[in-house]
């Protein structure tokens, strides 16, 4: 049995192992995100400390791997200073690992609220809301979760799911049936969806 298999067996069998693993992951990945965001803001630790109303020693600790048992209030304060949202949710181990593998401190950028077009322009988001059962679209830049409602999701953003069914059902049905979407509203699905409209539906639906 190789080390990877041994580790997986341990994680399956032992709650203590799972807790250690999650703690170690967060203990590295949260400080790394905080450091990345602070550096993107051209802030020194002292600047961040002042803006977040925290001591500099505390900022130093939150950027040290494993040194802080983060509470939500600390993360909220930091997110607020960085002018970004915060997502805290449970996830599968594979999802957790996928995020970690994709994460790079050097490339970690989060759109600030004033530059967050999706957040600032909720009208567009509302127009992309539609009814489709048991399907899921994923496209570049955002995902549309389709349960009973097709709902654009953004990290840290709230979405108004109210919509005008008549406005949106027809083009969506056309799209799902493989035909080219005919819509008088060029922003109907947003630019990303329009780019994909010629593809067979089987390539798009998961």
């Amino acid at each position, binding site marked *: 049995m190789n080390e990877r298999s041994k580790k997986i067996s341990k994680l399956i069998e032992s709650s203590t192992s799972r807790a250690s693993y999650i703690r170690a992951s967060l*203990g590295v990945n949260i400080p790394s995100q905080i450091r990345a965001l602070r550096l993107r803001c051209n802030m020194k630790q002292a600047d961040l400390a002042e803006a977040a109303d925290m001591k500099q020693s505390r900022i130093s600790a939150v950027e040290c791997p494993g040194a802080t048992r983060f509470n939500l209030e600390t993360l909220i304060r930091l997110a607020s200073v960085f002018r970004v949202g915060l997502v805290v949710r449970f996830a599968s181990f594979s999802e957790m690992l996928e995020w970690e593998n994709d994460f790079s*401190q050097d490339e970690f950028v989060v759109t600030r609220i004033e530059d967050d077009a999706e957040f600032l322009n909720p009208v567009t988001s509302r127009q992309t809301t539609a009814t489709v059962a048991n399907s899921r679209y994923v496209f570049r830049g955002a995902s549309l979760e389709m349960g009973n409602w097709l709902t654009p999701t953004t990290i840290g953003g709230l979405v108004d799911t109210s919509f005008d069914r008549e406005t949106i059902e027809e083009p969506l049905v056309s799209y799902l049936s493989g035909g080219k979407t005919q819509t008088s509203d060029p922003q109907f699905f947003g630019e990303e969806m329009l780019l994909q409209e010629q593809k067979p539906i089987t390539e798009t639906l998961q």
Partner: protein
Amino acid sequence: MRENVWRFFDVQYPDGSNPIEGWYQNLSEEARDAFNKLLKNHRKTENPQEWIGFKRFLKGKQLQKERIWEWWFVADGRQYRVFGKFWQGERKQAILLAGCYHKGEIYTPSNVFESACKRSRDLSEGRAQPSEREVKEDI
């Protein structure tokens, strides 16, 4: 996914001994996980001064001469220190020389600085070889 920009190495002696691996094997499960996650994170971070937990280049005549630096991380309520150096003349390669506990001003084992210096010299003088360290138990 960002490619790794750094490679990490252990010190391997001709008799097969590897002090960093020996240290690693004696760590608690949480400390091993933390160390692995840290390596994984640092591999993708270009500027070592931006590595989380990167503390400083050590002071002291021999330590300065060998350009040895120190990382720290905390796991299972203990503070750990890792000593290393950048590989001579090679870009984006770092050698891990020693690891220890740290509390207050006390490093355990207390001879960790001497060990790090000795291993660094052993590498420079060909008595030991660098051996690439994979992130263990990477899933």
